[in-house]
């Protein structure tokens, strides 16, 4: 499972949190990975993470690699579908 992700991958991970059985989704960059958990970073200041989410690998239900669009001007915002 660990080999599936590597630092710097852009991912969307769907996972469950027990015992409530809520289904969560986290979007961001793989920042750290260990035998049991993965840390996803959602925003950075330079190379320093600001917001992160820790996820146990065993709780991951679905993973997707993502290719985000960069917002470079206001028209890019208008083009994004609601």
């Amino acid at each position: 499972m660990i080999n599936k992700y590597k630092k710097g991958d852009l991912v969307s991970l769907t996972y469950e949190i027990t015992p409530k059985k809520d289904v969560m989704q986290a979007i961001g960059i793989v920042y750290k990975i260990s035998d049991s958990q993965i840390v996803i970073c959602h925003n950075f200041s330079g190379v320093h993470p600001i917001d992160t989410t820790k996820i146990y690998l065993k709780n991951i239900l679905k993973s997707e690699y993502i290719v985000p669009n960069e917002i470079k001007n206001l028209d890019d915002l208008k083009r994004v579908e609601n």
Partner: protein
Amino acid sequence: MKNIVVARYIDALYFKKNEKLDFSQFKTHIAIGELVDNNNIIFCFTKKNKKPNTGLLLTQESIVFKKNKKNKLYNFNYLSKIGVNVGIYWNDIVYFVNGKIPEMCTKAYTEGKLFSVTSNAIIIKDPKTILLKKKVINHPADEKQSYCVIPKSFVTDIQFYDK
């Protein structure tokens, strides 16, 4: 997956009491998330049961575009006002948690002495910042600050109180 976006943005800076003012430029932050509202530019970082749970509300002025629009306060002659007590009204970006998506940016008011002005920032000494919500809240809530650095593009109005 069509709404996954990356944005580069800047945010105001606070320096704690006794912390050296170390500022030359705003660091560019990078956010990755799903755009859930393109009018208020709301990014969601995590979802809980398919609903946005944590994220960020950015203003157009906080996003780093190739050409940012400059408001009239950009070209104001601040140099003659150095050392003067000022009150600055500005729009702050908002982090949200627990699914509490903000409807709009936070209106903030910072009062203090005009310490310095750079090409894109206003530096206030001994600032007191309040968030103008239904209930006035000190910001940051728990610590006294020595300096506050506000991007000029965030500023909506300035009041000068004495010379």
